[in-house]
C-alpha cells in the first residue's frame, strides 16, 4: 500500500507538471475535493455503521450468531481453514458475504468490518494480514452479486426496455471474478508470497 499510494501521487504530479500551470491548479483542487469527498462519504456511512453494529451486538448476545456459525461451519472450513470451528469470526464472515450477495449495500460494509475485527482477534492484532483476511478480502473485493439493484435502477432511468436483462450475465461474470480471485489467493498462500 505504501508503494502504490506514493506512486499514484507521484505519477499524478509528474503528469500535471507536463501540463504546466493548469496541471498544478487541477492537482491542488483534486486534493481539496478528494479530502472533502472522504469526509462526506464517512459521514454518510456513520448512521448505517452504528445501526448494523448495534443489531449485530443484539444478535450476538441472543446466540443467533452462534447458531448461524454452527449451521454453516462446513462451508467456512472449506474457504477459511485457519478459523477454528465455533469461533465468532466464522459467523461474521458468513453474514458479511451473504449480505454482499444480496446487494444490500449499506449493510455490507458494517458487517464486513465486524468480520475483520473478529479475524484480527484471531491474528493477534498484528499489522500484517492473515491468510483468512486475504481470502475474505478476495471474496469481498470481487463482490458476489445475486441482484445488481443499483445497475438495474440506472438502466431503468436511462430508458431501457429490459432493465433486468443483465441479471444472468452479471451472475456469471461475478462468479468468474470471484472464482479467479479465490483461486489466485490460494496459489499465493501456498507459496507464502510477499510483495
Amino acid at each position, binding site marked *: 500500500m505504501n508503494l502504490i499510494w506514493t506512486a499514484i501521487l507521484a505519477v499524478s504530479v509528474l503528469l500535471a507538471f507536463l501540463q504546466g500551470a493548469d496541471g498544478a491548479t487541477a492537482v491542488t483542487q483534486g486534493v481539496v475535493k478528494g479530502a472533502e469527498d472522504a*469526509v462526506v462519504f464517512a459521514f454518510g456511512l456513520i448512521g448505517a455503521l452504528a445501526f448494523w453494529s448495534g443489531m449485530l451486538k443484539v444478535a450476538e448476545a441472543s446466540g443467533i450468531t452462534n447458531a448461524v456459525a454452527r449451521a454453516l461451519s462446513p462451508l467456512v472450513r472449506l474457504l477459511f481453514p485457519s478459523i477454528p470451528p465455533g469461533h465468532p469470526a466464522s459467523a461474521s464472515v458468513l453474514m458479511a458475504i451473504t449480505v454482499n450477495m444480496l446487494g444490500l449495500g449499506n449493510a455490507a460494509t458494517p458487517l464486513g468490518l465486524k468480520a475483520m475485527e473478529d479475524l484480527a482477534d484471531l491474528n493477534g492484532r498484528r499489522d500484517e494480514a492473515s491468510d483468512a483476511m486475504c481470502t475474505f478480502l478476495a471474496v469481498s473485493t470481487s463482490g458476489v452479486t445475486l441482484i445488481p439493484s443499483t445497475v438495474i435502477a440506472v438502466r431503468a432511468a436511462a430508458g431501457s426496455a429490459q432493465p433486468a436483462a443483465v441479471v444472468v450475465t452479471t451472475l456469471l461474470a461475478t462468479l468468474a471474478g470471484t472464482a479467479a480471485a479465490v483461486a489466485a489467493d490460494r496459489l499465493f498462500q501456498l507459496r507464502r508470497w510477499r510483495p
Partner: protein
Amino acid sequence: MSGLVQAFSSWVIPALLLLVPGVALLRGVRVYEVFCEGAREGLETAFRILPYLVAMFVAVGVFRASHGLDAVLGLLRPAAERLGLPAEVLPLAILRPLSGSGSLGVLAELLKEHGPDSLVGLIASTMQGSTETTFYVLTVYFGAVGVVKARHSVAVGLLGDLAGFIASVAAVRWLLG
C-alpha cells in the same frame, strides 16, 4: 426467477428487524441497551476508517484531476482490444476498482450515449454490477483493524476484477449478443 430473488432480498432487512430483537427479547437479552452499546462501537469504527478514506479519496482525486486516467487508457487500449474488451468500456474498467460513484457516473454516460440495450450498454452494465470497488474495500477493511501489510490482496483483487471484466464481455456476447 430474478423477480423472486429480488422480492426475497427486499424483505431480508425487514425480516431481520423482526427476528433479531424478537428472539433476543425472548432469551432475556436487554435488547435496547445492548443495541446502543453496539451502535457506539460502530461510531468508533466510522471514525477509525476516516484517515484511510481521506488517503484513498485524495489519491484517486489527484489521479483523475491530472488526467492520469487518460494516460493509462492510452497505454492499455491495444492490450484491451486483444482481450476483446470494446474500447468504449475501457474507461469504466479502469475506474471501477478505484471509485464506485465515479464508475457509476461513467456507466450512466455510456448508457446515454450508446443506449442501455446496445452491446456496449449491456457489457458496461454487467461490468459495473459484477464487481466491487476493490480499492475502497481494501482500504476500509484493512484500515479498520490497523493492517498495513496487505500481502497479495491488492494483486488478487485486481486479478478478480480483470477476470470479471473478461467474463462480462464473454457472457453478454454469448447470451445477449
